[in-house]
C-alpha cells in the first residue's frame, strides 16, 4: 500500500468538495482496499464516506424501495421491508461475495465500481432502478457504461438508488467457484413498464437480454424461454468459463430466475 491522506467528512457536500483529481471515495472498501494493498492502485487521499449518516438506510414507499448508497449488503439482505417489497433484491444481496464482504460492502460502492461480475448491476438494470447522485438522477442503463466504467464524473457521488417495486422478480446466479462473483447472473422482473431481463457476469458490462424480454412479455414462464439462445460473441471468456458456456448459463439462469420469481 502506498501512503495516502485520509479524510472522513460528515456530509455529502463536504465529501464532494474534499475530492481532488488523484483522490478516491472510500465506501465499503471491498475492492479498493485490496487493490491499494497490492499496490495496483494509488490514491492521494481517501475520502471515507462512512461518517455520512444521510447516505445510509432503507425506506419503502408505496411504489419504490430507496436504498442509501452506504447501506451494506447485509442490511439489504436482512431488511424485512426489502424482503416484503422485492424479495429478489434481498436474495441477491444475501448472495454477494461472502459474509465478510456483505458486512462491509455497500450498494453505492459496488455500482460505482461496476465490476462486470458484480451482482447489483443486474438488479438495477433488471428492475429499472434510478441512480441518484449529488448532481442528478439517471437510469441504471445510463449509469452503467462499460467495464469498470460508469457515468459518474470525478466529483460526483452516488447518494441512493431507488427501485420501483415490480409485480414479481427473481434472480439466479451461477457463482464463480473461486471468487463467488457472478460467473453469470440473471435478474428477471415483471414490472408495470414490461418485463426486463438483465444479465451480469457474462459480458464486459451488465446488459438486457431483449429476446427473452419479448418472450416473457407474452408468457411469463420458464417454458417461454425454451430455445432462446444468447450469441456467444461479445461475451467474456477467461480461465473460468468460455463465452459459449456463459451463453448457456444465461439461458439456464434466466429460466431459474423466472421460476424463482415472486
Amino acid at each position, binding site marked *: 500500500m502506498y501512503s495516502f491522506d485520509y479524510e472522513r467528512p460528515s456530509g455529502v457536500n463536504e465529501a464532494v468538495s474534499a475530492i481532488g483529481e488523484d483522490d478516491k471515495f472510500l465506501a465499503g472498501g471491498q475492492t479498493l482496499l485490496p487493490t491499494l494493498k497490492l*499496490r495496483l492502485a494509488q490514491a492521494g487521499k481517501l475520502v471515507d464516506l462512512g461518517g455520512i449518516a444521510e447516505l445510509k438506510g432503507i425506506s419503502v414507499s408505496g411504489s419504490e424501495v430507496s436504498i442509501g448508497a452506504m447501506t451494506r449488503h447485509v442490511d439489504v439482505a436482512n431488511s424485512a421491508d426489502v424482503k416484503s417489497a422485492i424479495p429478489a433484491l434481498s436474495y441477491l444481496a444475501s448472495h454477494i461475495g461472502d459474509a465478510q464482504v456483505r458486512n462491509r460492502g455497500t450498494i453505492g460502492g459496488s455500482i460505482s465500481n461496476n465490476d462486470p461480475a458484480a451482482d447489483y448491476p443486474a438488479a438495477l438494470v433488471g428492475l429499472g432502478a434510478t441512480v441518484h447522485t449529488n448532481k442528478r438522477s439517471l437510469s441504471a442503463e445510463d449509469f452503467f457504461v462499460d467495464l469498470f466504467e460508469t457515468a459518474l464524473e470525478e466529483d460526483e457521488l452516488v447518494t441512493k438508488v431507488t427501485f420501483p417495486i415490480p409485480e414479481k422478480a427473481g434472480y439466479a446466479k451461477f457463482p464463480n467457484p473461486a471468487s463467488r462473483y457472478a460467473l453469470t447472473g440473471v435478474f428477471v422482473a415483471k414490472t408495470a413498464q414490461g418485463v426486463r431481463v438483465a444479465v451480469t457476469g457474462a459480458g464486459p458490462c451488465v446488459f438486457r437480454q431483449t429476446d427473452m424480454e419479448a418472450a416473457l412479455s407474452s408468457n411469463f414462464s420458464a417454458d417461454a424461454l425454451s430455445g432462446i439462445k444468447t450469441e456467444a460473441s461479445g461475451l467474456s471468456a477467461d480461465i473460468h468459463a468460455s463465452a459459449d458456456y456463459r451463453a*448457456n448459463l444465461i439461458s439456464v439462469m434466466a429460466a431459474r430466475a423466472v421460476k424463482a420469481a415472486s
Partner: protein
Amino acid sequence: MSVENGIGASVRRKEDQRFITGNGHYLDDINRVGQAYGYFLRSPYAFAKIKNIDLSAAKAAPGVVDIFTGADMVADGIGGLICGWGITSKDGSPHNAPPHNSLAVDAVRHVGDQVAFVIAESLQQAKDAAELIEVDYEVLTPVTNISKALDSGAPQIHDEAPGNLCYDWELGDKAAVDAAFANAAHVSKIDVVNNRLSPNPMEPRAALGEYDAGSGELTLHTTSQNPHVARLIMSAFLGIAPENKLRVIAPDVGGGFGSKIFVYAEETTTIWAARKINRPVKWTADRSEAFLTDAHGRDHVTHAELATDSDGKILAFRVSTQANMGAYLSTFASAVPTYLYGTLLSGQYKIPSIYCEVQAGFTNTTPVDAYRGAGRPEATYVVERMMDTAARDLKMDPTEFRLKNFIQPDAYPYETPVIMTYDSGDYPLAMNMAKDMIDYNGFAARKAQSEANGKIRGIGVAAYIEACGIAPSAAVGSLGAGVGLWESAEVRFNPTGSVTVFTGSHSHGQGHETTFAQIISDKLGVPIESVEVVHGDTSKVPFGMGTYGSRSLAVGGSAIVKAIDKIVEKSKKIAAHLMEASVEDIEHEHGVFSVAGTDKKLTMGEIAFAAYVPHNYPADLEPGMAENAFYDPLNFTFPAGTHIAEVEIDPATGVVDIVDWAAADDFGNIINPMIVEGQVHGGVAQGIGQALLEGVVYDDESGQLLTGSYMDYCMPRADDLPSFRIATTNTPCPSNPLGVKGCGEAGAIAAPAALMNAIVNALGKDIDMPATPEKVWRAINSN
C-alpha cells in the same frame, strides 16, 4: 486396565486453546528489538536473462539498510539450494540438478524468482525502494507445459539440463511386462493428467534471522516442518554457518502440507543477510508470494495400460509419466515422481509384473515438490482410474473387478513387483465395509430416481494404498536419499513427576502435543495435563528428521516408545531397590510398579522423585530420569482403504454435487480417533479440491501465473463438501511398537480417484481434473 486420556481416547487437542484464542506463537507474531524488514524483488518474467541490476537509486531511498543481489551471496561463498535425493536415469547417469541460487545470478526462470533482497526500517520502505531497482532484462520465450518442455525445439531453460530433462527413470521388469501384454486377452488404456496444485497453508512462509556478534551464533526462526534438516542443509551445503553456530526454530506453524519441508531461497537469504547487516531481519510472505513461490504439487501427464486375461485377472501394468519439476529442483522434488510414485503402482492388487518409466523435466514455473501424499496420490489416481477403465472394458462391476484382483488377507508379507513389501492389510474388508456404508447395491435405484429428476448420478470407488512412516534409512539410502529417515525422542521426567517430551517430529497442525502426550499418559500413568511436548527447536530437541509422509506417529511416536522403554527399565531397578525385591519380580503397568505376588507398589512419580533425590538409591545406577532414543523404522507402513463417492450432476450447468461419501480406512492402531477423523476430513477436502476446484494455470505464451489469488484459485470451502461417512478397519502394523500406520495423507490420496471415477461413471466418458462445471457440461454435450 485403561488410562484416562490414554491410547484410543478422543482427547480434545491440548494445543487448540492457544490457537483458537489467538495466543499461538506464529512466526509473524515474533519480533526483535532493532528488527529490519526484508522484501524480495521478484522477476516479473517467466524467463529472462539479467543483463544488469542498478541499485543506486534504491539504496538511496529513505529507510533502506542494504540491498543484496545474487552476486553478493556468491561473493560471500554461499552455495546454491540443493536437492537431497539423487535419482539415476535408465542409462546410469545421475539426474541433472542445475544450480539454484537463492538470489538469481544472470537469469530468472519463473515469475516470482528472487532478484534482489531489500532491507529497510519498515516493510513499506523496503517495497518503495524495490520499485526503484532498475533491472535490465533480456526477455526469453518460456515454456510451462511439461510435454512441450520435453519436446525437441523447446526453449532451453538450463545449460546443465539438455532438452530440459532432469532424468529418465524406470522401475520394474520391462521384458516381463511386454511378454504379458503380448499374451493378454484384453488391454485397457488411459491417459490422465494430474493437475498442478498450490499448497495454500493458512500461514504463509516467513523467516526471522538474528546474529549474535558476541557468540557468533545465528538464530533462524522459520516456518519449517523439519528444522534440523533445514539447519543441516544450510550449514553443510550452503555454508551459512557451522551447525553448532546455527539454531533453527520452527515455532507454531500454521499448516504445511509438505510445502514447508523444503529449504527455500527466502529463509536462506534472510539468515545470511542478518549477519551481513548485524541486525535482526524479518521476512513474511504475502499470499501473492505464497502462490508464486511455495513449491507446487503434482503436475503429471501419464499414459497407462493394463493387461488382463479372459477371466478378468490382471496380468501386467505399464505406466509412462512425464513429471514437471518446475524451474529448479526443489529439496526432495526428484523423489516424488519416482520412489514415492512408481513404488505404489501395484496398488492393492496382485499384479505379476509392472513397468514404470518417468521423464522429469524443467519448465518456467514454480518448482514442484511433495504436497500432501507426494507421489502416492498420483499413483493411486493412475491405478484407480485404470482399474475402473479396465472393469468398464470388461463389462464387470468395478468393485467385483477389484475384489477379484486384491491381494488377499493371508498373503502378507506381500512383495510387489515394484520393490515394496506390504506388511499387513485386509483390502476386501475395507471395500465391503465402504460398500455397505454407502449402500452400493442400492445405487441403481438412486440413479433411476435422479434420472427421473433430470439429473445424472454416478458412483466411484478408489481402493488406495500408500507407503507411510518414511522410512528405513538403509533402504532409502540405497535408492538415493541423502539423509537417514529415523526419528528421535527424549522423555524427561521432572523431579515432581511431570514430563517433558522432546521430539524430532514437528507439529504444524497434526496435534502432536495431544497424541504424543496420550502415549506418555497411557504407558507411564502421568496425567495428560502434566505432559509437555517440545518440538521445533534445534537447541532444545535432539537432531530429528521432522514431519512429512504421515511419519510422525509411526516413526516419531515409536522413538518415544523406545525412550519410554528405557525409562521403565531404569524405573524397575529403582523400584526393586526401594521395595527390596529383585528386578525380575517387578511388574509394570501404566506407571505403577509392583512386586509380583505382593501388594507392594510404587508409582512412576515416586520413582522419578527418588531418581532426582537419590538418598536411598541403587549404588550402580545413575541418578535422574531422562532417556533419549533414536528409532529407525524396519519398513514403510501401508495404510490402505476404500473410499466411495456418489455424485449427482446437473446436465444444464455441469455442476457436480457430491451427495455421499464413504471412507473405510485401515490406519492400524489409533491413538486419538477424533484427530484421525479430522485428518480424514481434511485430506478428503483437499482431494475433492483437486478433483473439482483447484488447478494452477500459467499463461502458455507469457508464463504468467493466472491463478495467483483466491479470486482465481479455487480452494474447497465447507459448502463445497458433503458430510462424510467414516469408518476404520484395523490390521495393526507389525513393524513398529505402536502398530500404527499413519493417517495424514490418506484422504488426499483416495479422494481424487474416487470422485473422478464417480464423475466418469455418471458421464460414461473420461474427463480430467479439475472437473469444473464447464468441462463436465462440455463432456455431456459432446459426442
